[in-house]
């Protein structure tokens, strides 16, 4: 059988499963049916497509999943192991993609913030949901986004009213219980920050047991004038996680967004992070760290789209590749013709620890305005020999010297995390991974 025939089959299998739930939310019926049709038209991306050049996601998914299967019931109990210690937070749990009310606990008041499952919000807050859902993501070319749009059954809905500064962060645990076979989930999240509000959200991805599991998640965030969003993704799933995540953030005047993407484990992780800066005096920071080992692959595709004048964006992504792992970075900066006086900076730095590891990086600038300051830089290399010698000449062993330098390299990203409990938690994982013994 030819490869094309196999591909068509998997699309058919997926479409058949979607069909069973496509009409689940009456007010979203058209949107979901359109998305299904578009998904069938696009098919899963081939390795020839520029955006998937180094990430054979379709081949790996087809090899590792049976799309016809439904998820098994989960009886998972021990979920405390995934918690971030000492962090006081609003906690939201999703198990195998479905909202778990009994495990979630919201401590902030309802006047301060509404935190619901998206399926509940579709019923109770349909106006707000309809005003935003699928308005910002690319449904023309992104097959996975269409798949999610047509297939999602559960997700997170956050609505922060004007001028509400929410001090207690939200931690969203996406748990896959892979003890009874494969899991496929499609979470759909909608985060709305009204004028002058602020909130921090941590998305954490974990699993139990060894079956393959795939998460195709879409998050849309709308950050209104003067609002501030801090969005953390902690990807440290030691099991067989495959993930395609699209996070689309839409920013208005004078808003601030800080994103932190820590990819520390996972078989195949593809993060699409898109920031649309549709206002003036916006400030956006995107931080990313990927520490890869064994045969894992992490692919960060980011887009910063400057559409209006006088905004600032800064992106710093760093990676350390060990074993036969592979890192991929593609960072696009667009500066549209009206976006004069834009300042946009991007930096991607990589260290390869073995010759079986690899990095493919493509920092990309597309500028249509002349009065701008934009730059990108990227490097790949091993640890600086001079610096290693300096450390060793002070009596520090070679191994410790290397660990010190790797930790310092990664530490720049840890420093960007301001929340103490989150920072400590990440510090612990990273220290252990980099064999910090000093």
């Amino acid at each position: 059988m030819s490869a094309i025939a196999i591909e068509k089959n998997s699309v058919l299998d997926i479409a058949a499963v979607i069909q069973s739930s496509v009409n689940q939310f009456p007010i979203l019926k058209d949107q979901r049916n359109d998305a299904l049709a578009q998904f069938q038209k696009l098919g899963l991306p081939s390795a020839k497509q520029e955006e998937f050049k180094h990430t054979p996601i379709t081949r790996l998914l087809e090899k590792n999943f049976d799309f016809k299967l439904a998820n098994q019931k989960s009886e998972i109990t021990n979920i405390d192991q995934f918690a971030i210690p000492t962090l006081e937070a609003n906690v939201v749990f999703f198990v195998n993609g479905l909202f778990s009310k009994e495990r979630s606990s919201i401590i902030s008041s309802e006047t301060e913030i509404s935190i619901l499952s998206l399926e509940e919000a579709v019923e109770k807050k349909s106006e707000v949901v309809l005003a935003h859902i699928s308005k910002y993501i690319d449904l023309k070319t992104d097959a996975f986004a269409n798949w999610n749009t047509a297939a999602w059954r559960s997700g997170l809905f956050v609505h922060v009213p004007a001028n509400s500064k929410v001090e207690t962060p939200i931690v969203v645990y996406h748990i896959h219980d892979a003890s009874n076979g494969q899991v496929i989930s499609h979470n759909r999240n909608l985060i709305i920050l009204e004028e002058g509000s602020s909130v921090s959200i941590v998305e954490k991805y974990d699993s139990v047991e060894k079956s393959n599991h795939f998460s195709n998640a879409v998050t849309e965030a709308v950050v209104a004038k003067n609002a501030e969003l801090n969005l953390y993704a902690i990807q440290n799933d030691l099991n067989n996680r495959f993930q395609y995540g699209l996070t689309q953030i839409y920013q208005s005047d004078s808003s601030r967004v800080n994103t932190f993407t820590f990819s520390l484990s996972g078989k195949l992780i593809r993060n699409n992070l898109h920031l649309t800066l549709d206002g003036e005096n916006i400030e956006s920071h995107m931080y990313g760290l990927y520490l890869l080992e064994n045969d894992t692959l992490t692919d960060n595709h980011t887009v910063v789209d400057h559409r209006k004048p006088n905004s600032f964006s800064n992106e710093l992504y760093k990676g350390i590749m060990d074993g036969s792992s592979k890192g991929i970075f593609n960072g696009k900066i667009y500066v549209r013709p009206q976006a004069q006086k834009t300042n946009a900076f991007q930096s991607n730095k990589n260290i390869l620890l073995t010759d079986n590891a690899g990095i493919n990086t493509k920092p990309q600038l597309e500028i249509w305005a002349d009065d701008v300051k934009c730059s990108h830089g990227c490097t790949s290399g091993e640890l600086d020999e001079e610096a290693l010698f300096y450390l060793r000449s002070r009596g520090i062993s070679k191994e410790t010297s290397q660990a010190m330098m790797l930790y310092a390299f990664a530490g720049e990203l840890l420093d960007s995390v301001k929340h103490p409990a989150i920072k400590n938690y990440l510090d612990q994982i990273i220290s252990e991974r980099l064999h910090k013994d000093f």
Partner: protein
Amino acid sequence: MSKDNQVLEEFTSKEYEHGWITNIESDSAPKGLNEDIVRFISAKKNEPQWMLDWRLDAYRKWTKMKEPVWANVHYPKINYQDIIYYSAPKQSDKSKKLEDIDPELIKTFERLGISLTEQKRLSGIAVDAVIDSVSVGTTFKETLGEMGIIFCSFSEAVLNHPELVKKYMGSVVPVNDNYFAALNSAVFTDGSFCYIPKGVRCPMELSTYFRINAANTGQFERTLIVADEGSYVSYLEGCTAPMRDENQLHAAVVEIYAMKDAQVKYSTVQNWYPGDKNGKGGIYNFVTKRGLCFGDNSKISWTQVETGSAITWKYPSCILKGDNSMGEFYSVAVTNNYQQADTGTKMIHIGKNTKSRIVSKGISAGHSQNSYRGQVHIMKRASNARNFSQCDSLLMGDQCGAHTFPYIDVENSSARIEHEATTSKIGEDQIFYCLQRGIDEESAVALIVNGYAKEVLNQLPMEFAVEAQKLLALTLEGSVG
């Protein structure tokens, strides 16, 4: 007089200065492309059977290929059946002695500043002059011949040095490398061939001057440079075309083969007709240039100043196969009005301790779009490879675009790669400083742009550097104020 002053003096002229047409009779193939046209071209050139077979093979491969669409350029679909694939100035005698060349042709090249006649030749440069599809004359052939250097038209090389042509043609750019290279392989009409023997340092610059004259023709020339062990050559290429309303296709192939310890420096000043202010006409410049550093310690250096063409699609590249070999790419690409350029390089590091350096300066003005596209690939075996890339873009006005698409692929941990890119505009304070010293705004821009591009211009041989500076200024004519 300083270089800068010369630039300023030339800066008053307003139009593309090489836009005139020579009235010579030409001998052409009918429009369109099929196997018979390929046979026609081959027969016109009295080629041996192996050459015809090679062309036909390329043609068949081409018919199965698709025109690439990944570049950041937009143009109406090219009708490949609406192009004349062979056009040659009619010459009474095939003997190709320089004395026998049609005086009109000699005049043509003299207007371009290239003299083919004995008395007026540029002293340090040997020239192969190519008009439309064929080479019309090569200077200093005998002088070079004494040192064992072969420098002649490609057609002559096919007839006189078949063993060299057979061995190296297609060895760096395979027939089916890409759509335009396959097309060229099928229908190429002439070009230059150059062989530098072992240990010989070529005493003068070798140069090919390309001129498109006839209407509706495509130009498909092919250049092959083979540098044997320990040799050195510096090669220059210049190009112009008349102003015509239709777009004309130029699909060339350049191959460089450098053996152990050999060094080749290839410089281009590309000034094909860019089309008029409204984007009408101009050359589609779809060119494949590649060098193979086959031997250890070999070095290939590309320098290009791209000011012309409606569309440029060109990536002079280096395959660094030999250990310790080195590749360089220095580029200035200026686009104005509705020009589109998608240009850059590939540095493929295969051997150990290989080094590459990329310096690209893009300048966009008017409604033009200027893209840098480059790849640095460090293969697994290439331990201690080094690359440094600097890609800067300068924007003039808010109707143009600057794009940077660098691909960096690293498979060896001891490799060190550094890539930097910036985008900026000419500083108002810089312009004001010049104005305050009595320099008008356009001249100020020319001065600043030349300064911006200096690192690249410095790589050019002297005669070319002056011309390149003038060209930069001319291309940006009318882009400020």
